[in-house]
């Protein structure tokens, strides 16, 4: 008896109990669909988190100050004396492993427009800033190094700032705002791309770096990012930078470096563990689905006792009967698995679209899904198939 004949027989039998077959498949559909979705979401989320943390993979790291316990307890702002001076920046730039230093100053302050005043984040920057932060211009332009060199009192603001201040203004370009009693003309509006989930949505106003001392009387920078000459040099560049800063400032706390590689590994570990936990719950769903298949196949064997007896009297061997029921349960789980993969892929795609991360469903995962459904069919079909094959034909045909 050929496989094709067996398959046709199985399909005919499943087709004759459509509702039951669909309900039985549901367990497998949900199980496989859940596994596919969870794995795809895990991979996609990891990819997104990694790209956010690694700063686009341009070998940069951020330097930050970690205050000592005493500084925390003193009641003063522990960050008040931790700014980076021009000497610091020049010294770090002279480290061989360092390609360039990107520093900027920022302060949350009152900004005035006509009679209104509101809080906004003022950032003083030069062009290096754009290597760390992807900004998209929605109208006008961004600030460049010429603006900085010439000390122009101009500013670019984000969409949030526009909403806050220029609700009634048709075109914010050209409008004048006041920061610390200094007037700035708006030249551009931007939005941040790849906004990380850790970034707060703030009203932002960007100004040329050289204007900063006019406002605050210092050219010290608040934020320091260092770009290493290559990925292999990140460690060395980081060590030398922190050593330099700690010796130069002799503060109670320490300057430290956010190591991207460690963070990446951490993220990947966290997402892997999460994927594994949710995946194993989905796997349990799959096993429960398999038990459902076994249950229905056992019912089917009992229902078809007479048929099995007859088939045996017509010359079906035990092998024929086993393969009939195995192929039936495998067909059931494989079709269920295929539907589950389709459903899981659709769901993962929807989530990826909404969350804005890449859709990562690989062929191996799909093949694994199909293979796994087949195996479930075999494992959970084995018991019913054996039960059927062992039936005594005389007894079976007498069964009512």
């Amino acid at each position: 008896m050929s496989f094709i004949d067996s398959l046709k027989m199985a399909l005919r039998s499943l087709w004759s109990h459509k509702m039951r077959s669909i309900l039985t498949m549901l367990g497998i559909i949900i199980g496989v669909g859940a596994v596919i979705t969870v794995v795809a979401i895990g991979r996609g989320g990891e990819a997104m988190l990694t790209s956010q943390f690694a700063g686009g993979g341009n070998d940069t790291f951020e330097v930050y100050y970690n205050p000592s316990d005493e500084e925390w307890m003193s009641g003063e702002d522990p960050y008040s004396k931790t700014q980076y001076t021009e000497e610091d920046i020049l010294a770090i730039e002279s480290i061989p492993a360092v390609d360039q230093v990107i520093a900027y100053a920022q302060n949350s302050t009152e900004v005035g427009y006509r009679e209104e005043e509101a809080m906004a984040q003022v950032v003083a920057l030069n062009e290096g800033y754009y290597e760390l932060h992807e900004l998209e211009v929605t109208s006008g332009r961004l600030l460049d190094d010429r603006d900085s060199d010439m000390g122009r009192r101009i500013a670019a603001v984000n969409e949030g700032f526009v909403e806050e201040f220029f609700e009634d203004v048709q075109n914010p370009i050209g409008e004048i705002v006041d920061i610390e009693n200094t007037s700035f003309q708006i030249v551009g509006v931007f939005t941040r791309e790849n906004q990380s989930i850790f970034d707060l949505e703030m009203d932002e106003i960007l100004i040329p770096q050289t204007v900063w001392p006019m406002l605050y009387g210092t050219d010290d920078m608040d934020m320091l990012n260092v770009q290493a000459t290559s990925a292999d040099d990140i460690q060395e560049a980081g060590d030398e930078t922190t050593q330099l800063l700690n010796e130069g400032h002799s503060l109670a706390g320490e300057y430290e470096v956010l190591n991207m590689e460690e963070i990446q590994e951490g993220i990947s570990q966290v997402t892997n563990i999460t994927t594994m936990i949710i995946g194993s719950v989905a796997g349990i769903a799959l096993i429960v689905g398999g038990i459902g298949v076994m249950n229905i196949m056992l019912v089917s064997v009992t229902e078809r006792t007479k048929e099995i007896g007859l088939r045996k009297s017509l010359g079906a061997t035990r092998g024929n009967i086993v393969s009939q029921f195995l192929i039936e349960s495998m067909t059931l789980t494989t079709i269920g698995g295929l539907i589950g993969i389709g459903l899981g892929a659709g769901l993962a795609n929807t989530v990826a679209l909404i969350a804005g991360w890449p859709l990562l469903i690989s062929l191996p995962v799909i093949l694994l899904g199909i293979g796994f459904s087949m195996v479930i069919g075999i494992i959970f079909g084995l018991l019913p198939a054996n039960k059927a094959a062992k039936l005594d034909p005389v007894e079976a045909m007498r069964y009512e």
Partner: protein
Amino acid sequence: MIQLNDIQKKYEMGDQILTVLDNIHLEIANHEFVAIMGPSGSGKSTLMNILGCLDQPSYGTYRLEGMDIFKQTQTSLAAIRNQHIGFVFQQFQLLPKLTAEMNVELPLIYAGVKKQERKERAQEALRKVGLGERMKHFPNQLSGGQKQRVAIARAIINDPSLILADEPTGALDTSSGEQVMALFEALHREGATIVVVTHEAEVADYARRVVTLRDGEIMNDGGRETCPSSTV
């Protein structure tokens, strides 16, 4: 050629031993038409299951076409049932989800015959039993007599050495029953070996030889009571 030699069948029920068949010696030549008669409980169904290679006796030997049946493996018994025996049951035993044609094809599927040939042979068998017009009908679209003729077509599809019919008219009205028996008679004239198990004398009348069982033993073997001399 069928040879049953000293067949005994016992069932153990608790500490009671029930002897269903005892001391059965039976030889059936090719082309014979034999009726096995007896009241219910006489062991005729058990005898038929043994003849059909569906059941094993507790003791004795059975040779079918020279093969020692009780020394065969399960798999070769399945093949023997498939190739050498055609069953006709009282309740027809057709699969309700299959058409008449597909029901008749079943033994050929297990014989590994290709689809096209299966179809042709099934159609030929159905025409032979007078159901050439009903091939695509499902069992529930057929009358009792028609169902039994489909079952007979299925029984003869592999051109078996032995056709075994268990109360083939038991579920039929008189006229359908007569048609079915006439069909057996026609098959017998063409050379088929037929064994019919029945408790109805009218059915046994079609046979050339009647074996009567009582309490598991052969009481009478030979001609019909109406025609005692006609053995083959």
